[in-house]
């Protein structure tokens, strides 16, 4: 069923445009990579902060407050450009294990944020000013760090696993 839907997407004029245009793919990929600096950069800084590895004298709440707009904006751009890249050749993307692994890990990264927000993140006010973050926050930071490193690796893997154009 999924493959049927992807074949339908592949046959749309939009998908053909992404595939056949000389400029579409390089431009979208360049935006995807430039936005890494905002999105991945901010994620890594926040993960390192949760792990007490950087800016320990800053409140975690203040870090979230300053970085969240860039983080959400950056994620939106990553998502849109990622979907555009995918739509150019959806069947081939889906046929690689790197793509499936990347999607599963993106889901896990989202669940990690959700879990943080309903548990230790909800009690942020209690530990915000303490010299050390609680172990649950460190675990969330470590999980996020590992997941995003693997997501980047899987993303690079897709480029090598796809059949050459």
């Amino acid at each position, binding site marked *: 069923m999924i493959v049927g839907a992807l074949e339908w997407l592949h046959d749309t004029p939009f998908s053909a445009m992404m595939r056949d245009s000389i400029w579409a793919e*390089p431009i979208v*990929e*360049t935006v995807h*990579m*430039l936005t*890494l*600096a*905002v*999105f*991945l*950069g*901010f*994620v*890594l*800084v926040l993960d*390192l902060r949760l792990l007490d590895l*950087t*800016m320990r004298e*800053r409140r975690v709440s203040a870090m979230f407050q*300053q*970085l969240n*707009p*860039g983080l959400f904006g950056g994620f939106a751009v990553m998502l849109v450009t990622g979907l555009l890249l995918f739509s150019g050749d959806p069947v081939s993307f889906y046929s690689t294990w790197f793509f499936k692994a990347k999607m599963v890990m993106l889901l896990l990264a989202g669940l990690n944020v959700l879990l943080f927000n309903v548990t230790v993140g909800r009690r942020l006010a209690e530990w915000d000013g303490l010299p050390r973050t609680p172990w649950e926050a460190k675990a969330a930071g470590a999980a996020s760090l590992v997941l995003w*490193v693997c997501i*980047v*690796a899987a993303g*690079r*893997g897709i*480029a*090598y696993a796809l059949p050459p154009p």
Partner: protein
Amino acid sequence: MHFMAQVLLAFCRWCDASFFGEAIRNSVWLFPFVEIFHLLALGLLGGTIILVNLSLLGVRFRGEPVSRLARDVQPLFNASLAVMLISGFLLFSTEALKMYGSPAFQFKMSCLALAILFTYTLHFRVARDAGTFSPGWRKVAAVTSLLLWVGVALGGRAIGYVNSTPPPGAGS
């Protein structure tokens, strides 16, 4: 040929023939493996530079001196730049002669040299003593920094798309 060009050409030939250049070139997974480090460091380097520049522009971290933020992110910036330079050099060494004749690579290296020079001299100086510079000069420093680093990134992206001219006497 100009003396400097000869030195660069000899250096590129040496890189091409080096054991690491050859090892990465002949391995299926080593090149993408090194690329992953290059991309991860790109995220952190870009992220820290953007934070300092947002502060200089007065968009984020408004309630505090820029110098505090600049001091806080400096270790992350230094570390990610080191990873960028090492991984970038390894990737370069797999096709150094091709890079020698690549206009995109030349553009990238020019931007990189200017970006590093600018960051460690004027940019950090403006960020450290932001109080002594007018908001106008702070914005000039931030925009210059962003343009130079975006130039490095775009030059890097262009390498795969712009043809390289073989150096004189390359034979192939």
